[in-house]
């Protein structure tokens, strides 16, 4: 990543104006992924002074500011109290503490990266994103809508549902990307998401429908995952291998949330 100018606006309106007025500008998250590219930008917009680094709990929701680090999320007692180990498990193996202290949740979400574990986890929560220009958008809708590119994510709002949720993955070594990630929740209904396939995480429709209609059909629903999702090859695993792993991870996760 290269850029000529670095700005640190004190108001979110100013940050958005710079972003809209200058098509060559870019919003900085933790610059962990952005920095790996050789792309040249005119202006880098730092959100550090916009007070977007927080986790707060109100009556119905947990709100996570877009500038909150993955390490803060990993350790936060409010997050741990309401969603068990779902979110900590989804971030705790990302490289190391040094990396997670710098990586921001806003960058991880807005980038819609195929290897993102946090996206897999957030998909099974009742979660909305609040943008400066586009307002509030359901998380799953944003993930599949690539038209929203020039806006500023302010916060992630997660409803405090009652029930179980968990995250499971398979990786060959600590601190590497996973071969496959799975998240399952059981609030009003069961939700299943599968990610790092290696493409971006997605919610299951068919397997979720089957398990919601009959909780005993864990194996049948898990096997449907292979038909429902496409699994690709990369340097970590083949698509064929991922097809074998996916039903195992999903069935174990379903057994746990239904126990």
């Amino acid at each position: 990543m290269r850029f000529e100018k670095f700005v640190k606006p004190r108001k979110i309106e100013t940050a958005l104006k710079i972003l809209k007025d200058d098509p060559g500008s870019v919003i900085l998250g933790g610059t962990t992924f952005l920095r790996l590219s050789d792309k040249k930008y005119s202006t880098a917009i730092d959100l550090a002074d916009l007070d977007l680094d927080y986790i707060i709990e109100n009556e119905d929701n947990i709100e996570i500011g877009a500038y909150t680090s993955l390490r803060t999320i990993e350790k936060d007692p409010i997050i741990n109290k309401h969603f068990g180990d779902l979110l900590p498990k989804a971030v705790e193996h990302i490289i190391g503490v040094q990396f997670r202290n710098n990586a921001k949740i806003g960058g991880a979400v807005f980038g819609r990266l195929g290897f993102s574990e946090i996206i897999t986890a957030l998909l099974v929560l009742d979660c909305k994103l609040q943008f400066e220009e586009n307002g509030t958008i359901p998380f799953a809708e944003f993930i599949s809508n690539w038209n929203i590119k020039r806006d500023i994510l302010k916060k992630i709002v997660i409803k405090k549902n009652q029930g179980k949720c968990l995250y499971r993955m398979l990786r060959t070594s600590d601190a590497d990307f996973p071969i496959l990630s799975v998240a399952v929740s059981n609030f009003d209904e069961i939700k299943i998401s599968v990610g790092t396939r290696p493409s971006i995480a997605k919610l299951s429709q068919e397997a979720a429908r089957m398990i919601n209609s009959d909780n005993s059909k864990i194996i049948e629903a898990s096997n449907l995952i292979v038909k429902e999702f496409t699994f690709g090859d990369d340097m970590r695993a083949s698509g064929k291998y991922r097809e074998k792993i996916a039903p195992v991870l999903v069935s174990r996760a379903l057994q746990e949330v239904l126990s």
Partner: protein
Amino acid sequence: MKVNLDINNRIYETYIDADEALLGVLRKLGYKSVKKGCDTGACGVCSVLIDGKPTLSCQFLAARAEGHKITTVEGLGKDADEIVDAIVSEGADQCGYCGPSLVLTTYAMKKELKNPTIEKIKHYLAGNLCRCSGFEGQLRGIKRYMGVK
């Protein structure tokens, strides 16, 4: 652009490129304990403390460092000596390239972990790669420093 950087409690007024990483700036200012390794955020040898938290200086923009307290291993003083002694007493130090970052991360870990266990130590240090020691000797020394049996 001009920035004021607080490094080991000393203020430096220096000129940087807007897109320059903190790693290069620290080395230019003479802090050669901060090593360049993978330069992609994976190996941890460039770690410094930003406001007391271990952070990869290869990924942290120097422009963003203004207003924060940067600590390199030179700034730890006797605290560093204690950690180094614990590691060296186990015969763990070989080429030494990862040493400063390991010492800094261990220092931060001691402050952060309330009830350290070997599993928590290994997890905390997962981002510090060592190419020659095999980690075992270092872990023995760090375990002792952390008071873990």
